[in-house]
Each structure stands twice: as structure tokens, then as C-alpha cells.
């Protein structure tokens, strides 16, 4: 804050009950009545994967899906979206398995520092949900509200293109990066005399 503007916060906004379904789980928290969704998600619900980049709706890092539509949580009042279904980056994967969009952001260089990645993935998942064979231009349009400072977007578009292929079920998930838990015994067979394939 710059300057000596007199800002009085007392009495602060009263807290009220906020409820919704976040990543498939019903959530009920107390939050100030004037809170934006981003703050509720980060500070109350604990979905820290939703990132705060600018507070102005300019960077897209805080994008979440609200009832299936990607929206900027920093520009959404929590009160407006009570009892909706909200999907954040934490809710993308299916159990321990990554979805195609997550796999491909990892394997195609779509994520460098990773801070904008959650927003990009929500935006592109929303695209794949309605269009499983998007052109590069359509992809660009879907992510135009998201800023990335590391990748120059090209590898993000590559990632989404590759994810679309997997999403349609046409490709195989081959990269080790696709599955965070590929093997229950990651260090392999202790006893090397065991026959090949024992660990599986």
C-alpha cells in the first residue's frame, strides 16, 4: 500500500457460512461475506494449487472451473457461487493417476516454473471437455486469458494438442511422467536372482 489513505476495516465484514462442492467433496467454511472465491479457496478450503498472480483478472493463474465453466476466482465473489461445483487443479487427476492434460503438460514442456500451470490446465481441460479435437488456433483462443512468462506458449499448445489425442483415447500413455505411482516397489526386486517380471 502506498500513501496514507485512511482505510478503516472495523467493523470487519461479518463472517458467514460458505458451502460448495470443491473437487467432488462437500465443503462448508466460515468466510467474510465480502470474500472473493480465490481467498476462500486458498485460505479456508486449503486448495493452495489455485494461484494468486495479480488480483486483477489479468494473469489467469487463479482460473477454476465453476459448474464446468472456467472462471477467474479472483474476480468472483464467493457469495455468488455458493453451492456450486468447483474444480481446482487438485481435482483434475483421477485418484493417483494423472489426466491426459496433466501428463502432457509434464512431458511436452508445458510447465516450467509451474506457477501459471494450474490456471492453464483448468482452461485447457475446459476446452477438451467441449472440443476433443481442437486446432492450434482454437487452443490459443482457449488460453488467451492466461499469461505464461516462461514457455512462450508454444510448448503449452503442444501439450494441449498431445493431451487432446490422449483424451480421445487414440494414444497411449507411455511416459513415466504420466503416473506418479508406477510401481509399488520402486526400488525393484531386492534379490536379483528373481526371474524377470517378478516385481510386476
Amino acid at each position, binding site marked *: 500500500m502506498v500513501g496514507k489513505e485512511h482505510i478503516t*476495516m472495523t467493523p470487519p465484514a461479518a463472517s458467514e457460512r460458505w458451502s460448495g462442492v470443491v473437487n467432488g467433496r462437500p465443503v462448508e467454511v466460515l468466510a467474510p461475506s465480502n470474500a472473493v472465491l480465490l481467498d476462500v479457496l486458498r485460505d479456508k478450503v486449503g486448495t*493452495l494449487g489455485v494461484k494468486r498472480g495479480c488480483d486483477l483478472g489479468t494473469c489467469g493463474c487463479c482460473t477454476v472451473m465453476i459448474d464446468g465453466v472456467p472462471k477467474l476466482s479472483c474476480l468472483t465473489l464467493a457469495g455468488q457461487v455458493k453451492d456450486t461445483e468447483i474444480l481446482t487443479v487438485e481435482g483434475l487427476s483421477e485418484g493417483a493417476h494423472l489426466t491426459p492434460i496433466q501428463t502432457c503438460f509434464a512431458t511436452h514442456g508445458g510447465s516450467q*516454473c509451474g506457477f501459471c500451470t494450474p490456471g492453464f490446465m483448468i482452461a485447457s481441460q475446459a476446452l477438451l471437455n467441449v472440443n476433443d479435437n481442437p486446432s492450434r488456433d482454437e487452443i490459443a483462443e482457449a488460453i488467451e486469458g492466461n499469461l505464461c512468462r516462461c514457455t512462450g506458449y508454444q510448448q503449452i499448445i503442444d501439450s494441449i494438442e498431445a493431451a487432446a489425442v490422449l483424451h480421445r483415447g487414440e494414444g497411449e500413455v507411455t511416459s513415466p511422467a504420466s503416473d506418479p505411482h508406477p510401481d509399488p516397489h520402486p526400488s525393484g526386486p531386492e534379490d536379483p536372482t528373481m526371474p524377470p517380471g517378478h516385481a510386476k
Partner: protein
Amino acid sequence: MGSYRQQPGSGKGDQRRDGKRVAGKQVFPPPGSGGSDPEMRPRDLDFIPETVGGREPKPAGDHIHDRDRTGTAVGKPMALVDSNAKVTGQAWYGDDVRLQGEAIGKILRSPHHYARIKSIDTTRVEALPGVLAVATGEDAPNRFGVLPVTKDEHAMAVDKVRHVGDLVACVAAVDEATAIEALSLFDIEWELLEPVFDPKKGLEDHDEPIHWRGKYHLARTNVQKRVFQEFGDRSLVKTPNAASHGSWTMAGVHHGFTEPHAVVAHWDPNGRLQLYTPQQVPHYTHRALSTVLDVPMHQINVVRTFVGGGFGGKSDPFPHEMCAAILARKAGVPIRITFDREEVYWINRGRHPSHIDVKMTADNEGRISGFDIDALIDGGGFASFGHVTSYYNGVLATAPYELGSFHYTGARVWTNKPASGAMRGHGAVNTRCAVEVGLDEMAEQMAVDPIDLRLANLLPPHSRTISGFRITSNGMREALTRVREGSDWDNKFRQLPLGKGIGIGCGFFISGSGLPIHWDPKNFPHATVHIQVDMDGGVTVHTGAADIGQGSTTAVAQVVAEVLALPVEMIHVRSHESDTSPVDLGSYSSRVTFMNANAAIRAAIGIRDQLLKAAWEMLGYHPNVLVLNDRRIYYKHDPAVGVSYLQALHKAQEDTGALIARGAYRSPPMGGVHKGAAAGLAPAYSFSAYVAEVDVDVETGKVSCTNVWAAHDCGKALNPLAVRGQIIGSCHMGLGQVLSEKMVYGRTGHLQNANLLDYKIPSVHEMPHVEPIIVESSDPEGPFGAKEAGEGPLLPILPAVVNAVYDATGIRMRDLPLTPDVVYKAIEKHLKKHDIDDPLDLVPPTLTHAPLQEQLVERAKEHEIRDRLRQRSEDTSAYVNGVLFGFDPNRPLSEQVEGWREADEPLPEQLAELGFAGRAWLKKEQRHMEDDA
């Protein structure tokens, strides 16, 4: 020994001719052990150099690390090892660290550009319910700064504030709302001082200079640093065949990382400080915290969180980090401070706004006879990295071309604006743009192709620049050739219609700074890596390298995996905490891959040697004839004879437990002895050449870049996926600077666009198609031949675009960024001057080659052969800048050339002809003024 046998069937083991018993011989492909795949993968010969029997081409010849290659990880495109954390939202950045019982810290920032604090009354703040702690400058009187020579920052203002947004005080409160309210309750008495915004006024004497350096202060000016460097014979420039003179104004730009700064400080029950911060350079923060808090370094643990983009903007120790620690100490609870986007611009450290004047000349043979650079850079309120930036603006222009003479004057001045600092391509970007555009202009004057002009003037591999930099590998020629082919340059340059243009630009950047900032390189290494392998076979690597998204953790994991022939999944890099990581200087000056991976290779070799020794004992074969492949060690001439990785590991652990090894990297002694000789010294340099195509709407002034061919010599791409990502990302950032990004300071000196709406970072729609071209020159000292790929690729995009705009319109523009209003005004001015009514009647430039062109092509051909021989070390003769001008590289140039000068101070007779920034040399330091008095 029984347990080491490979299979039950041959339990007795085999006897060698000398009667020694060895482990059993296997008849089927042996299972590996460790890793998730039970089968040993065959050796991947495509990724083993041909020099050691594989199929990977090595046009540059043998490399010292060839023998350590196992074909496992190096050179293979792979996902970053931490990418799963990033795509699942589990990567923890600064603001994601939430400790039990935390309180929120907020910073009171100065509303004035320049003012003295006469008093601060915090009574009303402290009385506010919910406020836990208040701190002001009095709480932290010790100064700090990233460079030991210019410590001019305080945690909070002491005595004076130096720019709007400068830190005045801070509070901690139970929640954010209370903390914000508390900020409005400070009662401060100010005495307003006369601010300075125009860097040109920084050279004048002021009543109240922004900082006071005592006897070293330059008169009463605001000059923080002045530089003079001169090499060569300036008489060469007197009779030029072509001459270019360009005066540039470059706006300040910001890194624009998406993660705003955030910090969490916590004093643990033992009184040790735990500080969580997204830092590129945690070690310097560590040092600065110790100084400011008066706490020994061993009582501080700096935890680097994931870093949401750095680009140089998170490499200073920051005052808010000190504030959090001070508040946490006072309040007794963990304190979290998170910036909003506006605060990110107040702390700044972006690229310096610059006025650069470049005069260049070429002689009758198309040789570059002189560079004369004058750079005035606007440092804002603090020194930051500015001392170095002042040098880099000149010295990083001394290659890749052979120069007849080089003359540089630079000055960095303090102004009452947020401090400038290091940003991707530190100090080199703006001058590089000016120089490359100057070359384009000289090529135009001489009617030759600008690529051929460059090709005929390149320094060869293994040579020395005019200022004494040691160039090792050099892929400049290949980069130029490949972008020329890729872009179909010869059929496009000067042949495109009005509004369409193509341009070339080159780059040259350091790969690691040769001198560590805080110590003599003789005393400590630049980087240290520890490796520990316990009985489970997993390899834990401890390094202080700060992964800021560029993939340094992945690079370290890759090189360790490569040496030990283990899957990358088995390498676990621990780099977050200063408690567990050996000291590393951090991620700046493009040093991490070069220095850290080198240290990691050495440590991995230490582990490998222990494993091989164990295998020797078990198999009876000397390590020289043992092969390491995917989780197995076997006899070279009979792969069935071998032991698994775990067997060898357990054998090696018999007496000592977990295997431990360490490796360090230290740069070789280099460089000249003149003042500033260390600036720009690096163990290796990267080279790049870009061709850009643009569309210019001559009626509106809108420029859009459509295609870029980007060739970058990174020595060896350890991870081609990451290198391509760095190249494309650099293009993005450079395009922002050349076309749209600008920190706008209004007439009152106020920063007007401290947000991402008005500060225009290119979106996906502004990005051209980039064709990344990786050139591998195999650096003799790089890890597996690698050099940097993170900063150098940014440099060429600016001049390539500016030159392309000229090709499209015939108008030279030298005000960056080339926003539509700037371009429109330039076109309008040009139309008026040449009496043209309609911008559509503009005639783009054409080119008819002069006879000199053929001469240049011939020379380039000869040099190509010379370069190949030198690259492959078939020609090892000395080569110093000046051979092109006929000098003998074996004798000092000062003996051969009359008027040859190497100087770091101007001669009295030169004072009258200095450029604008050079006029700082007209001023005297206080100590000399006292002498006079």
C-alpha cells in the same frame, strides 16, 4: 560371497585362469536391480558418443566427459523431474507455506519520491487490537546489498525514502484486514526532498544525492558507478568505409514472473530462524539475513520454496525478507508476507532504462574497425547488481566479432524510482540490440549481406576477445548458417514487399560468472554437490542450486543418472534447504547447469568409483574393463559376467554404510589485469543467431512478429525439451521488450502501469511461431559439453525484430519498445522528411551487392575451415582478437601497434570527446576534491 552370485544354477561360480574365483556367469539377460524395471535395458548407443564406441556424432571431437557417458539420460528430451508436483498443484510456492499460528505481515510503503523521515510515531498502530508487532528502520540499522561493494539497502528506510513504494515500516497482525488498517495509523513527519527522475540529470551535482558514498562519492552527483574501457587503436576508426551512429532510448522492463514475492519467517523453539522464500539466490539472502538480524549464519535456515519464475527478479536479498524475520522475532509467531502485483513493481530490479549511443565503423575490407559505446543506465533508488550491469553494458559486446578497437564509457545513476537490477540477459541485451542494428546499417552502407558481413568477422573457437575473455567452444558460425538456411534468407532479405520484413540478430552471453561475488575463487569453489547412496539404492543428491523453473534440478538428476547408469527416477535431488545443501551461489549469470552439473558429475564419479571397486572385488576384473549399464556392472568382453547395481552397492557398503561422495566446481584462472577485467569473465560463452520475420502495418504503426528461426549454441543440450523451452521462452520475453513492454513513468515520476493489465506482456496471440534450432559446439569444460541456454537466447530477438522492421519499411527506429505510437510517429516523420503523402508509397530498401560482398564470402569460407580445425583442436595455435587485422597473436599487441592502448581511465585529452555517460569522468571523487582543497 554366496549372496553375490547371479543365479542359483551356477552357484559355484567360475574360475578364471589365474585360479581366482569370480561371481557366477549368467546365461540369460540378468535382471537389474533398483528402479522399477526388472530387466536391464540395453545400452542406448544413439546417446553414447562415437568417440567412445557409440553412435552419437561428435563433430567437435573428443570431450573429457565422453567416457562417463552411459547413454542413460543426457541428450534425451525428458519431463522436468518436479513437473508432477507442478501439474497436480502440489508445488509449494512462497505463499503456499502456511504454518500453524501464522500472522500476516504488511509493509508500509513511501508515498513520496524522495523524503526524509523526521519521525515515526507508532502509538496508534500498536494500540489497534489485533496488531502483534510493529517494526521500523530503527529495528534493523545494518546495511545489506547483493554485492559486497555496494551495500546500500536497509530492511526499512533509515533516514530517507528513495522512491515511491520504498519500505518505511511493517506490521504484523492477526489477519490481513487488521494489518491493512494498521498501515493507515502510522504518524510520520516527512521532509520532502527534490527528486531526480531523469537519468541524464543524475550526472549533475545535487544538494542531496540519493546515496552518499563518503570519500568515494563522485562530486555531488547521483552517479553510482562509472566505467571506462578502451582497447585497441582508435586511429583505425578515422577513415571508415562505413559508419553507423545510433542513439537509443530503451525503456525499463520488468521480469513479469507470475508469482508475486512472498516470504514466511518463523523462529523455531531453539531460536533458529526458518525462512521460506522463493529465491533464486538463497545463499545471498542467507548472508544478508545474518548481517541485518545480527544472527550467525548457522542459526538461520533458508528454505527455498518452488520459485514461480525468477528471470533475475528474485536474486537480490530483499528487504521484505528481513521484515518478515524481524516481525516474527517480535511477535513470536510465524509471519507471512505476500506481495500484491503492485508491490512487485515497487521492488522491481528489472532491466535498466537506458540511453545508449553506439558508433561503429568498418574498413575497406569489411572488417569492424571500431565499437564506441556510451551507455547511461538508470539504476533507480538502489545499487542492486548495478555495479556489474555497468560493466556488462559494454564488455559483453566485445564478441562474437573481431574488433579493431573497442571503447566503452558507462555510467549508472541513482534516480528516485524503483531500483533496477539483473534481468535475463543481464546488462547485455540493450547494447547488443544497438550493436547488431549498427552492423545491419553498416552492411546496408557497404551494400553487402549482413549475414555474410558477420560470417567474415567472427572470432574463432579457442580465441581471446579484445578485452581478454577466453572463448572456448564457439557455435556462432553454425548458428548463422542454420538460421540462414532455415529461414530461406537469401530469397527473402531485401526482397519482401512493403510492410513485410526479415532481420538478423546475434547474441553472445556468459555461461557462469568466473568470479564468485563473495569470495576469491581460490578460497572456495563456485558449486558443491553431495551425493549419498544408502542400501535401498536410491541416490540422494544435495545441492544448493535453485531451480526456478529452468530445470536445474532435472539437469543435476540427469547428469548423476548418466554417470551411474541409473533411471532418473532413482535420483532424488534435495535442494531446498540451506541446512542440508552445500553452499551454491544460486541461479544467476547462467551458471547453474555449467557449474552445478560439473560438480554433480564429479560427485557421481566418486560414487561410481566406489561401486566399480566393489565390482572389481566381486568379479575380479579391473574397473577399466567393467561397463556400467542400466543398474548393472559387467565385464566388457562378456556381458553375462557381472553383478547388479545393488550387489555392488551392498558390497561397497560392507564396512562403511551409505556411500557418500562430493564434487565441486571451480572456474579456471582467467582474464586480464585491468580494472573491471573480471566483469564478463566466464568459463564458457554461449552464442546465438536469430532471424525474425515481421509484419508492419505502415498505416497504423502496428508491428507483429510472425516467424522466428532461433539458433542457439548451448554446447550440448542435456535436455533438448528444456533447451527448446528456454529458447522459445526467451523469444517471448525479448519480444515483449522490443514490441510492447515498458515501465511507464509519468511526468511526476510516478510509475503508471504497476499491474499486468497496463504492463503488456505478450499473450498467446502475440507470439510468433518459433523454430528453435539447437547448435551443439561441445564445450571442453562444460558438463558433457553443455553451456547455458537460459539467458543468451533472449539477446538476438530484439535486433532481429528491429532490423526486420527496417527491411519492411526502410526506417530505422531506435526507441524501444516499438509500440504502434512510436512506429507511427517514426513513419510520419519519415514521410514528412521525404515528402511522401501516403505511407503505402514508402519504398522498402533493396540490395545490389557491391564487389566487397564476394570478398566477404571468400573470407568467410576460409574462416570456416579455420574454425573447424580449431574447434576440433587440430589447430591449437594462439588466436587473439587482432589477427584479422594482421597482427601476430604471439606478441603483445602493444608492441605491434602504435597507439595501442588498454585503459580503464580516460586520458586528459580524451575528456573533451567523451559521450554523455562518459562525462561522469569529468567529476572527481570526494577524496580527490579534498586533495585539491
